[in-house]
């Protein structure tokens, strides 16, 4: 069960066995967060940088807590506080940070492929906290952890992911992970946001949400991003809501013990009705809690129990 990776760039490079190792380790990590002293010394002396070029309080603070619970030192850099504003390139920023002897860099960036790019020249471990529309591996991992907690397994489940699939790195990472673990994935959304090419990556593509939800074990709603110019992709929020919003009537088509998930932050009454968001079926808050455990597991597996490589 050895975890032989230096970086976590995406789900793509993980085997099913790697994923299970992370999930199993996360279980042990979860226990630490229930103690009064929520800390273990395993990553003491390690230096981790949170480098967030995109706004995010949720993922960033989740990683920060995970690092601190493992006793690592972590520092936050965001786009506005760094010299990016002064025009410094990503490469220069990373090299300057590394000059301070970092062990790991957690990066969220708007350009797909940026974690790959920086891993080619930096010696720290690189952890992808979301790159453009490419991948968001820790989100998929915490989603799988949450599903497993409720359903005891992933294999054979019908998981339906609804929304703006085209622009969603969460959808892509989840799709890859669920396929590796043997689940059946159905994607639903309006055609401009759901290219048929996704069928080549192991998903069924449906434009009719009601049909898609039949017999679902897990319903994962994606955020419709109102920041981008979405007028081109669908004509109005009103129309989107009537066709693709998760409301109680629609949800009845899923299995009786189906769970509702969302990577957050949610747009109440746009992608999901308020009552469902707050219902017992919704595991949205657990996802957040599990995020810390899963990220602790990732940090431990990448950095724990290893001596720092001293370059020749």
């Amino acid at each position, binding site marked *: 069960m050895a975890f032989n990776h230096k970086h976590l760039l995406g789900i793509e490079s993980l085997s099913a066995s790697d994923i299970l190792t992370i999930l*199993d*380790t996360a*279980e*042990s990590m979860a*226990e630490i967060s229930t*103690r009064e*002293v929520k800390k*273990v010394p395993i990553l003491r002396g390690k230096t981790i940088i949170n480098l967030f070029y995109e706004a995010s309080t949720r993922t960033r603070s989740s990683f920060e807590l995970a690092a601190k619970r493992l006793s690592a030192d972590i520092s936050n850099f965001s786009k506005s506080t760094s010299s990016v504003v002064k025009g410094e390139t990503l490469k220069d920023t990373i090299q300057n940070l590394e000059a301070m002897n970092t062990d790991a860099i957690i990066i969220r960036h708007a350009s797909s492929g940026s974690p790959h790019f920086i891993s080619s020249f930096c010696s720290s471990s690189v952890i992808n906290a979301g790159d453009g529309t490419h991948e968001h591996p820790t989100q998929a991992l915490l989603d799988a952890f949450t599903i497993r907690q409720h359903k005891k397994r992933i294999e054979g489940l019908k998981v339906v992911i609804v929304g703006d699939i085209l622009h969603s790195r969460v959808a892509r990472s989840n799709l890859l992970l669920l396929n590796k673990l043997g689940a059946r994935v159905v994607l639903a959304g309006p055609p401009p946001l759901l290219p048929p090419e996704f069928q080549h990556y192991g998903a069924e593509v449906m434009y009719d949400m009601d049909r898609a939800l039949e017999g679902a074990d897990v319903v994962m709603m994606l955020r419709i991003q109102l920041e981008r110019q979405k007028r081109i992709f669908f004509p109005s929020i009103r129309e989107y809501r009537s066709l693709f919003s998760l409301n109680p009537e629609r949800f009845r088509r899923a299995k009786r013990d189906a769970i509702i998930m969302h990577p957050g932050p949610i747009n109440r009454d746009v992608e999901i009705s308020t009552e469902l968001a707050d219902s017992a079926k919704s595991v949205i808050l657990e996802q957040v809690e599990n995020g810390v455990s899963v990220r602790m597991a990732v940090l431990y597996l990448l950095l724990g129990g*290893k001596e720092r490589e001293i370059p020749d």
Partner: protein
Amino acid sequence: MKKEKIKARIMDAAKIKRAFQRMAHEIIERNRDLNNLVIVGIRTRGVFVAKRIAKLIKESEGVDIPVGVLDITLYRDDFSDMGEQHIVKKTEISFAVDKKDVLLVDDVLFTGRTIRAALDSLIDLGRPKTIQLLVFIDRGHRELPIRADYVGKFLPTSRRERVKLQMDEIDKKDEVQIIEPAGIN
């Protein structure tokens, strides 16, 4: 290149049983208030040793001592010795340790580093009143100032040998073995 082989079998099932019984009586003797005692076994074999001790105390005094499981992977400091990264399993202690007399239990006491990690972990979990240490085998070669309160057997060994407490629960028999490691003689 030699394969690893058993150099000596030091204790058989009968001797092991007697050692356990003796230790159980020592514990009962020294702990006036058994109701304040809790036992914490260190994964993996320490847990089975702990459970046997708890069973013997119950048989003798009729008191149910709670047993918890401690995983100390996240507190270790000896990674270069360990080689590969260790899988971390759950710590399962369902009772509070505050103000309790904790009996920490492990199968073999060697350098003392495992016990040091266990002490750190216990103290992060709460504030015990006292901590006592029970080990089945003390094989010497301490690197830290740690000593056990209850010992099943003192066993002088050379540093490179391995000592194994085989237990019926895992290995289908009770036996203490000294093992000569693989390699050039």
